């Protein structure tokens, strides 16, 4: 199974950009499969949702604006090759010092993990240890990561929102003419023959959204949680925007509202922390949120997962809007 991945990677190096994107999707699928076989269900969940779905869409969105041809270059870059081989050889040598794979006595397994595994069911009362570690023991980390996502969402928006300057290269204009002469824009309503995807998407979207909510709130008991649910929720909307056109999606969830939600998620997370501070504990100490410690932990995890979910949804959507909206601007000016 691992050989599959290696094979895919080799291919990834050689072909043109578009093909590389497709292959990246395939690699992502295979990778998630490997994660499942390595018992990392939550990670596989995220990888599947993010790698195969969202990142493909983003790469495609970029390619639509940039063009997919890579210049042919015959020379093999010798310098980087040597560096790579050197790094690889060093690491390869280092693996002989690594403890054998999968043994329970490895240093990684004996440090803090036993505590998480043994105590989290009684301390937190949540069956999914990944969730309890994520949201409770390492709540600070997760808060930081949510903020990073928030910042990235804002950054993409700022970079892509700016009006483009009038300085245009000739070939670029040609490209735009080509695009505007084709039957519609990337985000337009599509041709009449899109009936089947329309109907099917209309049928499926409500279920996708409900499923996202299920993932969000079932995250305590099974694989799932805020990050995954956020991505799935965003994916539902992206499907809607893809099939019906971005204007419809904007009508449902406005760009400003998305921004607001993005901030609201982070604020909810921070708010939980501050609330526990007000109640006399440390930042993000959920034990005090309810009368009983386990109950408080439950409530806290639920709330911050919700915050994470909202932020991730909104950030993904705003990134998607920014990319696709950019393509729209291009086309208007090309007319």
């Amino acid at each position, binding site marked *: 199974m*691992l050989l599959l*991945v290696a094979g895919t*990677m080799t291919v*990834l*190096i050689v072909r043109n*950009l578009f093909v*590389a994107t497709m292959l*990246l999707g395939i690699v992502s699928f295979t*990778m998630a499969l490997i*994660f499942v076989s*390595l*018992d*990392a269900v*939550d*990670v596989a969940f*995220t990888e599947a949702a*993010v*790698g195969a779905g*969202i*990142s493909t869409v*983003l790469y495609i*969105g970029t390619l639509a604006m*940039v063009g997919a041809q890579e*210049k042919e270059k015959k020379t093999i870059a010798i310098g980087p090759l040597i560096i*790579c081989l050197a*790094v*690889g050889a060093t*690491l*390869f040598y280092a*693996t002989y010092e*690594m403890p054998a*794979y*999968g*043994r*329970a006595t490895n240093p990684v397994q004996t440090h803090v*993990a036993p505590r*998480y*595994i043994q105590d989290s069911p009684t301390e937190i009362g949540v*069956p*999914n*240890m*990944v969730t309890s570690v*994520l949201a409770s023991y*390492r709540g600070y980390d*997760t808060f930081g*990561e949510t903020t*990073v996502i928030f910042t*990235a*969402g804002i950054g*993409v928006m700022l*970079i*892509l929102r700016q009006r*483009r300057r009038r*300085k245009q290269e000739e*070939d*670029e204009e040609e490209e735009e003419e080509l695009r505007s002469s084709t039957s519609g824009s990337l985000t337009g309503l599509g041709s009449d023959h899109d009936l089947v995807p329309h109907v099917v998407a209309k049928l499926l979207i409500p279920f996708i959204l409900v499923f996202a909510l299920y993932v969000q709130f079932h995250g305590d008991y099974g*694989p799932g949680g805020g*990050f995954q649910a956020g991505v799935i929720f965003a994916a539902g909307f992206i499907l809607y925007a893809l099939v019906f056109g971005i204007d419809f999606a904007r009508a449902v969830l406005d760009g400003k509202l998305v921004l607001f939600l993005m901030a609201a998620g982070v604020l909810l997370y921070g708010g939980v922390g501050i609330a526990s501070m007000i109640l006399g504990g440390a930042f993000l100490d959920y034990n005090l949120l309810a009368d009983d410690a386990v109950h408080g932990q439950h409530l806290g995890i639920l709330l911050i997962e919700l915050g994470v979910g909202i932020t991730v949804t909104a950030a*993904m959507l705003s*990134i998607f809007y920014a990319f696709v909206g950019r393509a729209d601007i291009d086309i208007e000016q090309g007319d």
Partner: protein
Amino acid sequence: MFSEHFNYWVFIILLMLGLFTVMSRSNLIKKMIGLSLFQISVFLFYISMGKVTGGTAPIVVETLGNASEPVYSNPLPHVLILTAIVVGIATTALGLSLVVRIKETFGTVDEDEILALEEDS
């Protein structure tokens, strides 16, 4: 011997491929793809460190009476990688948006051409 380190070797191969792509390709999007590969290889490394042979996913199962307590894989790497994936996609999006801007300003996404343009101006 072979099976004990196999995962690590695959990780190294992937890492080398990713690194090579980043360093040798002049196309910026290709560089981003190489970066993603690099990321994925690191994820694989972490997750294979957390695996315990014969273990099961770190979600508590109800054990019935005399059944022995199951072995769980290490949940900590899972947590780290889970967040890393989402952060990774966010940073990738940021990088791609920068690529789009570069394309608009310079009219190309090829690193060598951009450098040449810079020198001209």
